[in-house]
């Protein structure tokens, strides 16, 4: 399997994102409540949605890995989680900036989506030390898949629990996220969401392409140097293997 660098996808991503940002600043009206600060919403929420869906996708890929035993699904699951965690960092930082601008504090415990996202993010951060701690490659892949499935089941549960814990005394900070979006805002939001989803997919493809190249180089090296070849492979990131090798 070879992953060709997705040029058209990247171009489409850039186009959609630029369109989305242009719409944000030139088309979407200012929010009645929060004013200009609400513009962060078009950045923060699409990132969060894509990260969470990314985690679900990783869980599905993990299931496919366990059922088929094909290592390519483990590679995809790993990359899905990796990119979603990176998106997660962006979510938390932009969410924090939004909270600071809106509410004066760098983090608000009253916003259930932000809080439950923090918990999910902390959980998926443990994915890396887990992979690192298991040396046998096959076992590492299998256990990582079990983790991805468990964590995937955890995400909706956690969201429900945190949502229920929200006290009714404090109003939602990111109230716009719920409803009260005008048609213009909704359209802008959807374009940004599409752009972020495309960005996620593009980054995933780039990661997969790099891994594939590195694996091929490793094979080439082994063919030329024999088995004492020392490659620059990562210990935890699974390397895709070509079919029939």
């Amino acid at each position, binding site marked *: 399997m070879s992953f060709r660098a997705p040029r058209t996808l990247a171009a489409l991503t850039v186009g959609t994102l630029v369109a989305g*940002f242009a719409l944000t*600043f*030139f088309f*979407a*009206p*200012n929010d009645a409540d929060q*004013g*200009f*600060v609400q*513009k*962060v919403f078009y*950045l*923060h929420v699409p*990132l969060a949605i894509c990260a969470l869906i990314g985690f679900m996708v990783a869980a599905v890929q993990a299931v496919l890995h366990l059922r088929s035993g094909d290592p390519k699904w483990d590679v995809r699951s790993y990359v899905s989680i990796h990119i979603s965690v*990176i998106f997660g*960092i*962006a979510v938390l*930082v*932009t969410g924090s*900036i*939004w909270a*600071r*601008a809106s509410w004066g504090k760098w983090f608000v415990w009253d916003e259930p989506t932000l809080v439950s996202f923090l918990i999910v993010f902390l959980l998926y951060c443990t994915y890396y030390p887990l992979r690192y701690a298991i040396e046998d490659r096959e076992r590492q892949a299998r256990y990582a898949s079990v983790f991805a499935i468990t964590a995937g089941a955890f995400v909706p549960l956690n969201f429900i629990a945190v949502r229920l814990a929200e006290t009714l005394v404090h109003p939602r900070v990111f109230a716009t996220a719920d409803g009260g979006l005008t048609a213009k805002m909704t359209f802008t939001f959807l374009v940004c969401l599409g752009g972020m989803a495309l960005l996620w997919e593009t*980054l995933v493809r*780039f990661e997969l392409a*790099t891994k594939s*190249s*590195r694996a091929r*180089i490793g094979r*080439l*090296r082994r063919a*030329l*140097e024999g088995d004492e070849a020392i*490659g*620059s492979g990562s210990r935890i990131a699974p390397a895709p293997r070509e079919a029939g090798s």
Partner: protein
Amino acid sequence: MPALPLDEAGKYVAGAYLVFLALLLVYVAIMSARLARLDRELAELGELAGNVVERERSTREEAFRG
């Protein structure tokens, strides 16, 4: 019509978008560093392959001569 009051709020919004851009650029930088390393390894392997071809050619020549 652009909604651009560059007061307090504007700085935060700009900050958020800049953070996003910065993260993206950091990612691109890391990827390009990785690709540079892969390039270097390929060059090495190219040399190795060249040596192997040389060796095989000289062995074949000897076999013909001998």
